[in-house]
């Protein structure tokens, strides 16, 4: 079927995100089948989130509608439409970790950080997120700080790790 693409707005140089970085990513993946997911991953890796303002640029490059791109972004829990804290702390909420006290660990971390799952600490340092299995089920409960896994996690171990990594964004 021939698509009647509605015209998207022209690129605005004042858009609140790095349009050149996005353009580079779109160029890198040009004409590669099924490229929307890797494009969104790369944009999030580069900008920390997928700015809603970047959707027209993505859509135009892929000859898709904004609706299609928005539908994909909103389906996957990994993709963020707003910046997160400086570091992401994922706490496993699945069965194996439940069997080893993850419910209490989560509650204690929420109290320690002063924010709930899906929220960011007041100082913008840490975003606390639920995750459903990290594949670290033989050392439950497990968490991940950035890309760094931590097994048999305790509040003390997690906060120590957060403090130790205070200078680096993993």
């Amino acid at each position: 079927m021939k698509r009647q693409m509605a015209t998207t707005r022209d690129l605005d140089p004042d858009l609140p995100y790095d349009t050149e970085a996005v353009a580079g990513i779109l160029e890198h993946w040009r004409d590669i089948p099924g490229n929307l997911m890797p494009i969104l991953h790369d944009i999030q890796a580069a900008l920390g989130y997928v700015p809603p303002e970047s959707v027209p640029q993505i859509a135009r490059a892929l000859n898709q509608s904004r609706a299609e791109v928005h539908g994909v972004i909103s389906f996957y829990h990994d993709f963020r439409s707003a910046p997160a804290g400086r570091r992401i702390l994922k706490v496993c909420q699945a069965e194996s970790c439940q069997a080893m006290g993850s419910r209490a660990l989560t509650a204690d971390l929420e109290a320690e950080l002063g924010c709930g799952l899906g929220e960011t600490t007041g100082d913008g340092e840490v975003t606390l997120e639920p995750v459903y299995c990290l594949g670290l089920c033989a050392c439950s409960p497990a968490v991940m700080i950035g890309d760094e896994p931590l097994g048999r996690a305790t509040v003390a171990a997690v906060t120590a790790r957060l403090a130790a990594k205070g200078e680096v964004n993993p």
Partner: protein
Amino acid sequence: MSVTVYVPRDAAALALGADATATAVEAEAKRRGEDVHVVRNGSRGMVWLEPLVEVQTPAGRVAYGPVAPEDVPGLFDAGFLTGGDHGLGHGPTDQMAWLKGQERLTFARVGITDPLALDDYLAHAGYRGLKQALELTPAEIVAQVTESGLRGRGGAAFPTGIKWDTVLKAEAPQKYIACNADEGDSGTFSDRMIMEGDPFALIEGMTIAGRAVGATFGYIYVRSEYPHAIRALRSAIDTAREAGWLGNDIRGSGTSFDIDVRVGAGAYICGEETSMLDSLEGKRGMIRPKPPLPAIEGLFGMPTAVNNVVSLASVPIILDRGAKYYADYGVGRSRGTLPIQLAGNLKTPGLVEKAFGVTLRELIEDYGGGTASGRPPRAVQIGGPLGAYFDESHFDLPLDYEELSENLGIVGHGGIVVFDDTVDMAEQARFAMEFCGIESCGKCTPCRVGSTRGTELIEKIMHGEDKSTNHQQLLGLLDVMENASLCALGGMAHLPVMSALRLFPEDFGLEASHVE
């Protein structure tokens, strides 16, 4: 003479401090002027001993663990570089009881080799399966896999050879291999351990699959929660390509095959094959109705063999040693071995590869060592979040597809999660429904709305609200979800809930007679 010391790079080992241990070993060796070569291997699967450090001695590898950085100077003092005695020592690794009784076919190399070193792979029987396959016609390869009795290890247990035969016979300008590495079931990590610990085995298996069905390109769809697996795969694929094991005209055979790694984005549903295909195409991961089968109309509308990581990684040894060798393991219609993942509240959890037929009791009590908490085990969930719960009266059940199915359960991807007697099974049933709701793609109504209603009903029962009425409503809902859902997410969510209700009615404040 340099001494080789192994410190695993598996994510579970890293989660327990393996990087710091490896750094400490190198620093201490340098300080003492010892010539030590540290190899970052995969994990042996004895996760409670991680970081498990091994030393190569003339008499074989000797194990020490768990080794914290502060233990390292003491190990040097004890002469561990020559296998010396130490409180953390376990003697020769191969002789450790936990490993000795296993039947490691798919995991033969995991923990032994440097997973990113192609020469190490080749030195340990690597690519022997593909070499065999290149001598066979596609139909002969498919026949070997069919005769081996290999069934899909992702959970659906569909015979791999039959699936491949369908793809082989489909005519199309392009066919694909799509490796499902979206290992989302809690309590499972065998795919991850293969990808991190022996990625070339998966690459070899996919290449054989490509030759068997006539596919020249494959995708590995890995969940984003596995960053170490993603890096290991990408590195191994580059290495294989540079050495001519991937790409055009592989090793002069005329067969061409290449692989790309694609990363999921936090959606359990994308472990369902049709949803994974939609995601690979860059769409919302929505379930497609079947038929058409992906084997006939799959990725980008082309015939596609969708196989799990463990299934594909088991193919090289089948081609290398022959279908019969593999099929001689196992019982009944469950042939070969299963990498079983022991998780949750266990003293000695990890990965055990055994022939089908091993009992739950052997796994939980012998391998698992009983609960970590020391309290009595109360419930065991087998096969992931959509798997049934069992109580101790089922511990003598053998792990095999048919036996578990007769007992209203599933083997799934082979994960076993143990809970002690502090578990609240009503809460576990509630969570099963909540999880279904969090991960529902939202296409079909029984799952989209039913999972939320199920969570609410169980909450009402837990709060003692119109118990009997809500219990009846819940049973009706579970029937609708089981029989009217579009895919297994809604269609199997009744298993954990019903088994919890049946075996632990008291946790719901229900009389046993109500739940019969």
